[in-house]
Each structure stands twice: as C-alpha cells, then as structure tokens.
C-alpha cells in the first residue's frame, strides 16, 4: 500500500519521524509537491518557502542522525498565516500596503516552531488584516474551499484552513479575533482552536484588535491541535497580556477524551433562528453522541449575547483604527506618490499610500473606529461596548456555574458562494455571531467537524467553549466527539472531500499570486 504522507496526521508523522522510518525532507517535499499540484486551484498560500522548509527539514534529519534528542514534532511541517511576523519571509497580512515587507524579527510563536524544528512551508492567505469571513478581502485574491472551489474557505484564516483541508500542510497557524480560526475550520471540515486570551503570545502577530486577537492551531484532528497548541502556548515576557501560568495538559486531555459526568451547556441564544437546518441537525446529533459518551446536557441562557455583535463591531474597529495608524509610508511597506502634486508633504504621501494600500473593508472599519473613539461619541460607542463586554463575561461566568463547557454550531451556515455576502457587510458580520462572544470574554473555543449538512453536503462545525485557562476541556470534549463521529462515518470526514489532484485551472474570481 502506498503511503501518501500528506494524508497523515501530524501525530502519525511525528511517530514515523521519531522511528526513523521517514525523513523530515521526505515529509516537507511531499507537502511542497502537493502544493505545486493543487494550490493553483485552492490558493492557500501567498508565499511558499521551499528552500527554507527543506533546509529546516535537512537540519532536523542531520540532528536526528547525530542522536540529538528532538522535539516530538521536529520535522513536522507547518503553514503560518501571513499576519504573523516571520524573519526573512514576506509578511503582508493580505494587504497591498505591506507588499514586499520582510520582517527583521520572528514572532514568539514562530521562534517556538523553529526551536521545535518544524519546517515552515509558507505564509497563508487571509482577508486583509484579518478583516473578513471569506478571504474575499485579501488584496491577493481569495482562497478556495477544497469541498467546493466556488465557495469560500472561511475567513479571515481561509488560507490556513484550506491548506490543511487540501492536505498541503498537516498543521497551520491561524489567528482568531472574532472567529477567524473556528469559522474557517467549520466550513472546511477541519479543526481550529482559539486559545484562552493570553494563552499564546501575541508578540509578532500584526494586531487587528489587540484585546481580541489570539493565535492558535488549525489542524485536521483534535489531537494534532493539542500537540501544536502545546508548542506555541505558554508565557512570553514580550507580551504583557500573556498569562504567566502553565498551560493545562492539552495532549493528555485529547488522548483521554473523557467526558463522563461532564456537564455540556447548550447556549439557547446560539442555536435558534438564523442557523441553517442541516447545521442544526448535525449539531443536535453531535450533542447526542456526547450524551452517549457519558456527558450530561443542560441548557443555559446568555441574554447579553444579543448585543455581542454590536459591541464587537465597535471595539474591533476602534482598536484597529489605532493599530493600523502605523502604516504611513514612512518606514516600511508601500509608498505612493500622490498624483498631481509636485512637491508632496509627508502627510500627502501618507494619505495617498493609505488610499491606495488599504482595501474597502479596512477603510470601512478605520472610519468606524475613528468615529467611535471621537470625543463626544466615545462614551456612547466605545464606552457602551466595553460595558456590554463585561455583561457578556458575566453571562459566561454564570453559564459556567451550570456547565463545564458550552456548545453551539460554530457558524450559522455552511460555506457560502463567492460574492454572496461581499456587498452586504452585515450578512458577512452575522457569520461570526456564535464565535464572537468567546473573543469578547477572552475564553477558549474550538471548532470540530460535526458532519455534512444534508441540504448541500458541505461541512458543518461544532463549537466547544470553556472557561479561561481550561483549554484542556476543549480537547477532551472535542476528541470524544471526533472519536464517536469518525467511528459512525467509518473514517475521517475529509476523506469524503472531492479529490483535487489535477484540478488544474483556477476556479472562481481572478486572483493574483503574490510571491
């Protein structure tokens, strides 16, 4: 039987590498070959680092041969979302304004990947500055959903989710500000974790909304997510908001997959209207699986969630308007000379650059945020949003008294078609209705596949939320559900995705490949 290394989980690859039955170079090369084969169609990557990945792989092979003791994931390759600073590798955040910017430093989590000996395959596509739910707001064209290339792979981290779903990488890093790891995972049939806020260092993560952003794993299995989470998690003195406490044992939780006696809270506000029928059906079946595994179900109410979206779309743009102010053409990135001005001032160059360098969604949110922070409006907008944020955190606190974890569908619908919501920002924003509350409260969440919706045969996601610093519960529940569902399906759900090999020509909107 031929072994296609790209179909292996990270855990399986790690075992084969440790045994010495395969080399890190073989693993990296297999994934690079897969990318060469399918990424014209999927467009997961903005930048592929063939040389860097192979060089890291060779280094790992050499060290292993020399008998050095290596990290368990040494030689397992990974893709990194383009919003994470990587020394020597372009980091564009999906924006024209950072075209060609090569950071002189590594994000802390990248340093940890490199220390673990994990080859970085490349940088994945995303909505510009992580603003969006579809990658349609990437300045370099959208990524495509491997289940249906006419559909979105989720966003903002659609590059990472589609890379993992199309077997171009066993692991990827995403970032989640309002659902950008979990919603792409849901619509591509993969796993994605948003860790507890402060659980993974943000140093080197180009900020969208500092108080909401969190980097985390994108994988095909729950165990793989736990393995990656343990690599990147833990205190970082370079990030003041990083939690100075040990990460709970995540891999152990995923391996034990024990939910007996666990109280599963169904959030009333996140299961009702607005959720696609097939998504709801898969959700209810998943809950039943957990009950069969020994969990207990309770219903909880979080009334303030009604205001979550409104609060989120005040806090996020406010912070973003300030975070994105640094892109002024002075020190790095794009610089555009204003037309018709012979001797432009610094301010005129800055204005012309920001006009040309930012896309419409980014401009929309900068304007929203600038307005919300303006004197005279601050209390009504930013101030009120912060109050709602506290109320949502209070709702969670109460809910977690009744339940050990909370569950909901990850996204209200399966993957939509390109263009369906592009001209309707509100419809696009509503896609994050179930994921946003966790970011506002700083608690961890995971999305695991719950099956294919009956009406369209596309993946649906099951979201699990836990109290802050209890990320281990996500993995226990996620792994238990995954085991039952996989058994019921007779194999991994992604095995049922259409084959992409030889797909050839690009499908969907035109795009430009950025090197």
């Amino acid at each position, binding site marked *: 039987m031929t072994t296609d290394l790209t179909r292996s989980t990270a855990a399986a690859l790690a075992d084969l590498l440790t045994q010495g039955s395969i080399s890190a170079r073989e693993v990296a090369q297999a994934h690079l070959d897969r990318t060469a084969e399918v990424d014209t169609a999927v467009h997961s990557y903005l930048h592929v680092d063939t040389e860097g990945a192979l060089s890291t792989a060779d280094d790992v092979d050499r060290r292993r041969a020399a008998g050095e003791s290596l990290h368990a994931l040494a030689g397992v390759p990974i893709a990194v979302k383009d919003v994470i600073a990587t020394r020597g590798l372009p980091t564009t955040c999906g924006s024209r304004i950072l075209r060609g910017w090569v*950071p002189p430093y590594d994000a802390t989590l990248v340093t940890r990947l490199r220390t673990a000996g994990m080859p970085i395959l490349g940088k994945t596509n995303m909505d510009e500055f992580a603003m969006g739910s579809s990658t349609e707001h990437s300045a370099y064209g959208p990524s495509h959903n491997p289940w249906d290339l006419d559909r979105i792979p989720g966003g903002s981290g659609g590059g990472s989710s589609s890379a993992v779903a199309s077997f171009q990488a066993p692991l990827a890093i995403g970032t989640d500000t309002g659902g950008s790891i979990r919603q792409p995972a849901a619509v591509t049939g993969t796993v994605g974790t948003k860790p507890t806020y402060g659980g993974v260092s943000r140093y080197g993560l180009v900020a969208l909304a500092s108080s909401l952003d969190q980097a985390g794993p994108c994988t095909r299995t729950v165990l793989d997510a736990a393995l990656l989470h343990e690599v990147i998690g833990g205190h970082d003195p370079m990030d003041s908001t990083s939690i100075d406490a040990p990460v709970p044992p995540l891999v152990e939780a995923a391996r034990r997959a024990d939910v007996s006696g666990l109280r599963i809270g169904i959030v009333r506000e996140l299961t009702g209207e607005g959720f696609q029928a097939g998504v709801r059906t898969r959700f209810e079946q998943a809950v039943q699986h957990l009950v069969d595994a020994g969990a207990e179900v309770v219903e909880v109410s979080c009334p303030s969630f009604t205001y979550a979206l409104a609060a989120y779309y005040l806090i996020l743009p406010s912070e973003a*308007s300030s975070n994105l102010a640094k892109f*002024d053409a*002075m020190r790095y990135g794009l610089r555009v000379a204003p037309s018709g001005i012979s001797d432009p001032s610094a301010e005129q160059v800055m204005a012309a650059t920001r006009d040309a360098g930012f896309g419409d969604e980014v401009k929309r949110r900068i304007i929203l945020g600038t307005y919300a922070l303006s004197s005279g409006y601050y209390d009504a907008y930013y101030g009120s949003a912060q109050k709602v944020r506290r109320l949502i955190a209070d709702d969670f606190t109460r809910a977690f008294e009744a339940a050990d974890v909370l569950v909901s569908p990850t996204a209200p619908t399966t993957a939509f078609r390109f263009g369906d919501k592009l001209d309707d920002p509100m419809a696009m924003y509503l896609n994050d209705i179930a994921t946003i509350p966790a970011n506002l409260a700083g608690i961890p969440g995971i999305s695991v596949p719950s099956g294919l919706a009956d009406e369209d045969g596309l993946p649906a996601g099951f979201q699990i939320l836990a109290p802050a610093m209890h990320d281990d519960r996500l993995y226990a529940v996620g792994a238990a559900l995954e085991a039952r569902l996989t058994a019921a399906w007779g194999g991994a759900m992604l095995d049922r995705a259409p084959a992409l090999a030889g797909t050839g020509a690009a499908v969907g909107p035109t795009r430009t490949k950025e090197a």
Partner: protein
Amino acid sequence: MTTQATAEATLPLEAALAAYDPALGLEVHVELNTATKMFCGCPTEFGAEPNTQVCPVCLGLPGALPVVNVKAVESAIRIGLVLNCQIARWCRFARKNYFYPDMPKNFQTSQYDEPIAFDGFLDVELDDGAVYRVQIERAHMEEDTGKSLHVGGSTGRIHGATHSLVDYNRAGIPLIEIVTKPMLGTGERAPEIARAYVATLRDLLKALDVSDVRMEQGSMRCDVNLSLTPKGADRLGTRTETKNVNSLRSVERAVRYEIGRQAAVLSSGGSVVQETRHWHEDTGVTTSGRVKSDADDYRYFPEPDLVPVAPTAELVEALRGTLPEPPVARRRRLQTSWGFSDLEMRDVVNAGLVELVEETVRAGASPAAARKWWSGEIARRANAAGQDVPTYAASLGVAPAHVVELEALVKRGRLNDSMARQVWDAVLAAEGTPTAVADARGLELVEDTGALASAVDAVIAANPEVAAKVRDGKVAAAGALIGQVMRELRGQADAAAARALILERLGQS
C-alpha cells in the same frame, strides 16, 4: 493664518498687572534616566549615532508589543511621592492617537484619565525667602517621540526644508509629564514663581536621581500655559500654550512676555487666540504656532497591549523610604551647618553649586573655601561657555579634591591668596593638580626670615625718605615698602610678615 515673524505689541508688566490677573500653568516633561526605554530593552544613552538604539518595539514594527519598564514606574511613583501626590492603586496607559512622522506607531502610549500620581503640591521658595505653594494636578508616564531633522532650509524648521531625517533613538524614552493646576493670585510674581518652580523641580528630580534634568539637552522641557483675567472677573481667560521654553531664565521671560502681549491684545479690545506658541530664545518673544480647537481630538482609549499598573501599598511605602530630604529643608540644614549668610547661601543655590559644595566639604575642605573656589573664576568661565559649573568642572576634570588640596596648601602656609588664585587658574587650564602646579612654577612662600630680613633691610636702605615718614608715625606709608619687598621676593612672601618686620625695623611695632 500666517506666522508672524515680528514681535507683537506688549504692555509693560506693571500696566498689564494693574488691569489683569494672570493664571499660570506649567507642564514639565522629564526624561527619566532609566538604563532602558519605557517599553523595550533599548538603551537610552544620549548622543549615540542616529537609529542605533532601536528595535521592533520602539520602531513600531507591525506585530511588536510594549512591555512596561518597572524601573520607570518606580521613578514615576517616587516623583509623585516627592510632589506630595496621591499614588493610583490601579491605573492604565492610554493611546493618544495622532499622525506625526517621528512617532513610529502614530499614537503615543501615554496616560489619560488615570495618571499614576495626582493631587499634590510643591512648596517653592522665592528669592526673598517667601514660600509659594504650587498645586500639582498630575504626573503621568508616557514615551518620548523620535526626533526630526529638517534638512535644506535655512532655519532648520520644516518650512523650506528639502527633506527630513528622523532619528528614533529618542522614541520610547520614558517621560514623566508633571502638570500644575492653574496658579492664581501670583500677580507680579508670576514670572519669578514660574522660574522658581521649575528650578525647585529640577533640584528635586536631581536629588531623586531619576533624571539628568539637563534643560539644554532636552531631558527637561517646559511648556508655559498662561491666561489673563480682567480684575474682578471670575472666569479664567483664553490661554496660550508656549512650547519648549527650555531654560530657567526663558521660563521667567516667556511668562513676562505673554502677560505683556496678552494684556496688549485684551486692552486694545481684541481677544486672545487659543493656540500653541513658539518661544524665541534670541529675541525673547513668542510667536503664533498652531491654533488649537475642539477639532484636536486624540481619540484616547485604554492601551489594550498593556496590563494595568497596580502598585502595591508595600511598594509605595518602600519607595517613600527612598525619598531625599525636601529641598527647602535641606537648604536650611546645609546653610546652618556651613555657617553661610542668607546672601551667600542664595548665591550658592542660584549658581547650582549646592551639591558641589557639599561634596567638597565632605572631601575635607572648609565650607568657605568650597564656596570661594567654586563660585569664582570657574563660575565666570562656565557661564561664558553656557554651562553650569558642575558640568563645566566635570568637562575640565576639576574635582572637589583639587579644592581640598589648594586649601591645604594655603593653610600650610605654602601659598598666599594671590598665589593660590594663580594656581587655581592653572588647574583650570589643565596644568595639573594644585601641588603639581605649585611645584612646576616654583611657587613657595618665603619663610626663611633671613631672606625676608635682608630684603627688608635693603628696601629701607634704598628708600630713606619713605622710611623716615614711617618712623615719624605715618604707618600707611609702609605700604610702598611692603610692595617693594614683595617684588624683591617675587611675591613668594607673606605680606603680613613683611609688614611686621618693616614696622619693627622702623620702631613702629
């Protein structure tokens, strides 16, 4: 509106104050002397090559994050305590959003409505000994910006420049901004109080050892807020903010000028424009800068990349234990111990010599000698060089030990006063230590009574008429003989001894 280059009309201070009451406010920015910057580990040393003390954090590179410098927070708390402020139990940083090329993130990480220290006061002693209590509104932490250098224009200002260079070494240096409440009822003493406040603050911060407080290097910078209220009115008038008034003398002059200028505007029926103004050291005037309006909106919000600062009561109390003696009390104590008159003490204080005199006395000199040598020739030269005495002395390598040594030479009788002055001049000219100079120049009082006696006898013999006058009781005439004896011995004699011997020889002792 155009920038006015010419001086505006002003009323004489007396006339201005007859009609208006000034309300004075001072904002002082102090660069802390921490080894590293406010939010990163870059060094803070002054004068390094441009852009050599930078990193992703202070350059504001995408993805970089700030971490608060604990030492800077401690300095801020100590400053707050010494200004008799309340120390916040919990406070946050805030972002002050505005675009400027020398500000890497296009927001300044500062504090807004939650300063680390607030509601304090500072007692300021004026020249005549009167004490004025300045109310402190707040002291807050923030980061400095980079520095723009405008090239190609004639003025060094952005106007007319062909291009600008930015040095980010200064970006992220910890700053404390100390803001007073409006000082009311100062009347004619407003300029003097302003100066005395800044001087007292400078001395205090120096004693705290939290800053170099070098106004000429920009480590202490002062903005003067001033408004006038017509006598009898109860609402404060429109104020101006004069930026970067960076010497004690300028603070006093700028206050005086703005009182006169605003009074002239108001008394001619005009109204004062709310604006920032530039201070011109050379001409002693302020000119209109940017007009301030309600459109100045910094969109402050709490800095989400930093956690709140929450100093424990134990920390605050521990820091309180490190505070130096208040300057006024310290000055009184030193004056008593040194036995200086009020005038002498004031001269020492105003010349910025307190620490130097103290150090010199500690090294073994008498207070009188310390005062004498540090406030004489070296003070004149330092002034000419535009420096304060301690800085100037340090640059020459002249130390308290030199004064101690010089005084010892005089006390031992090796040098008389004029010889000692000669030696000191040579020490200031870097010729060596006082002993080395005296040795090299062969300076030594003639103590050999034989040499003195024969010189006296020779001079009396050569001047029979003068000698006769002295013998007749005109003792004053002896001065001429003394002078000749000193010349004979090339100054290396004790004039008192020569005088005594002459009088003795001529029967007048």
